[in-house]
């Protein structure tokens, strides 16, 4: 399956995939130069829902900006808030009670599962299988209900505060989370039976869109894109933050480099997140969820700070350049999908359009998160 090499310019045509296209899951546009069904060249055009979060970050105080982070990625919002609060706490020297950190880890992992479940459904839908999405959404619904009960919202949570949390978890949440773990494990078995073993599904992904570790490195890919290419990189393990060193979990790494490997990584990650939640619930200490001393307006000493966290989509980084004022001097949000998406242009050359769109699905794109 390789594209013909020599082409006259009048032998190709331009196909605009997007900005409104079912496979792009949002307003993403890929300008493809096609030779029949083969892609000769592709140029991704992003920025259709760019909202300039970074400028908002400079104009708002630290606390005012907090809710913007969850608007970046509507599927895995808590991970992004987590990165931001960790950075400000680190830079401003705010102590966080242990209970708050545990609850953060539990909720982030729940959110990660929810995000992966949605991706799973949408990915199989990209390949033409409709039903798994409904099953995945039902499992995700349990998580959204749980998170709604404690955070008050279903998607764009502003649950974390500098120094702790907005709301403590109650017994209902803990009981629901405990009930959820075995239920999710049963569902995972079902998904593997229904989807992973399906011959058409495997045929469509095996060996498709191989990404070498070298390409991942040049583009700075993270999350399942890197881990599906045999790179053992997970910020939770490589740069332990929060209470993650307390948990016993594995980082699933697959060496096949193809779309199926990326799929397998995410599916295996759900199980690892369940393990973290299980241990977190067992170890959950008592105590306050906010520092004893009430925090006044937050000011960060001048300097340059960086914090990376592993969100559902990869290594999310926040860079803060502070001049000591009430607002950040510069706030840079490094979104993981931005880098993951970038390698699409180079990697999809010579692929069939249907393989390329399956590949795009395996990158787990959330467009607002690319565009910021």
């Amino acid at each position, binding site marked *: *399956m390789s594209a013909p090499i020599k082409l006259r310019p009048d032998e190709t*045509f331009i*196909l605009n995939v997007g900005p409104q*296209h*079912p*496979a792009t899951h949002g307003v993403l546009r890929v300008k493809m130069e096609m030779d029949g*069904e083969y892609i000769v060249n592709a140029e991704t055009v992003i920025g259709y829902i760019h909202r300039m979060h970074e400028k908002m970050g400079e104009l708002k105080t630290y606390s005012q900006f907090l809710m913007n982070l969850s608007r970046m990625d509507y599927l895995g919002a808590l991970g992004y808030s987590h990165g931001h609060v960790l950075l400000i706490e680190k830079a401003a020297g705010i102590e966080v009670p242990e209970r708050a950190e545990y609850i953060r880890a539990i909720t982030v992992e729940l959110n990660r599962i929810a995000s992966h479940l949605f991706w799973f459904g949408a990915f*199989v*839908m*990209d*390949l*033409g*299988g*409709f*039903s798994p*999405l*409904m*099953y995945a959404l*039902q499992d995700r619904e349990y998580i959204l209900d749980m998170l709604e009960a404690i955070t008050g919202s279903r998607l764009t949570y502003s649950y974390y505060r500098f120094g702790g949390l907005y709301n403590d978890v109650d017994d209902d949440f803990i009981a629901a989370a405990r009930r959820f773990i075995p239920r999710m494990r049963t569902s995972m078995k079902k998904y593997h039976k229904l*989807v992973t073993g*399906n011959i*058409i*599904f495997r*045929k*469509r992904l095996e060996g498709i869109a191989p990404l070498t570790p070298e390409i991942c490195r040049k583009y700075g890919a993270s999350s399942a894109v890197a881990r599906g290419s045999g790179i053992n990189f997970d910020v939770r393990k490589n740069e332990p933050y929060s209470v993650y060193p307390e948990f016993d979990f594995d980082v699933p790494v697959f060496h096949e480099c193809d779309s199926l490997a990326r799929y397998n990584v995410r599916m295996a990650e759900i199980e690892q997140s369940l393990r973290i939640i299980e241990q977190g619930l067992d170890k959950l200490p008592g105590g306050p969820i906010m520092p004893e001393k009430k925090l006044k307006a937050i000011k960060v000493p001048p300097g340059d700070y960086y914090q990376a966290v592993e969100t559902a989509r990869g290594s999310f980084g926040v860079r803060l350049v502070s001049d000591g004022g009430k607002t950040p001097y510069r706030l840079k949000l490094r979104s993981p999908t931005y880098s993951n998406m970038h390698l699409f242009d180079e990697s999809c050359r010579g692929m*069939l*359009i*249907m*393989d390329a*769109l399956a590949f795009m699905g395996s990158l787990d794109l959330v467009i607002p998160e690319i565009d910021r």
Partner: protein
Amino acid sequence: MSLTLLNVIVAVIIAIAFAALNAAYLVWAERRGAARIQRRPGPNINGPFGLFQPPLDGVKLMAKQLLIPGGVDKVLFMAAPVLAMAPAITSFVTLPFSDLIVGHNMHIGILLIFAFASIGGMSLLFAGWSSRNKYSMMSSVRAVSQAIAYEIPMLITVITVVMIAGTTDLMGIVKGQMGGFWHWNIFPFKAGLFNPLMLMSFLIFFTCSLAETNRAPFDLGEAESELVAGFHTEYGSMGFGLFFMAEYANIVIGASLTTILFLGGWDCPFGFFPGVWWFLLKIYLLIASFIWIRWTFPRTTIYGLLNLSWKILIPLSLFNLLLTAGLLKVF
């Protein structure tokens, strides 16, 4: 029975009514079936079990404006949906539902149906070509290559059955299978002929009819996650409605042909009360499996699809043809 004008008109009206009713309620069945498979209610507001949904949808589609985008080839654009629907309806005229219920039985009935099926493929090409849309164009090219690839194993399998029956008359093919399920073409121990590959032939035919009707997992012509909606991207209102109905009418024809060729038509599996009810039961079971397959499997790739046909189905069906010919000679 002499062929009078009245006969033909009545037959065609009944065929249209049957095809349209089937198409409408198969959409309902599909949506309810999909909903059941996906653990959601499906259409259940209009009428009991949502049974009024299809006519209301029809009214909605007909009330919409038929939008013709600028720059399309108008004649072909308008002709394509009609060309999709017309052969589907015409095919019903020759399909025997029982030994009494048949519009007009012909000695070359099966050839007629396949001739009409090719026109259906042409309508996809017209629709894609005339839409002036790159996605539609790609889709129609896919649909045509798919139609060509799958007509071959389908026809070879049909020839096998025709050889066994000794006639191209659909009525005659069914009559050759009367008297209980062990006489059906699908079973290898058909009286006087022992061909272990007939079950495989049935599967080939079934797969091909899935592909010929552009159903998942072979719905590469539509492939909504890649080609938006394929050849009917630019169609709205009843233009889309006709394509949609043609798809379901074709499903009914595919299921009917499978029943007639392999499952004994209106014959009862146990030999008593043969009649149209057995025929309907069989085709709706087959249609239910069509729906089931669609909502279970992801889509194949275009090369996977063509490879399946050219590298697996055609050689296998050819082998079965040879084997059957040899066995017929021996016994």
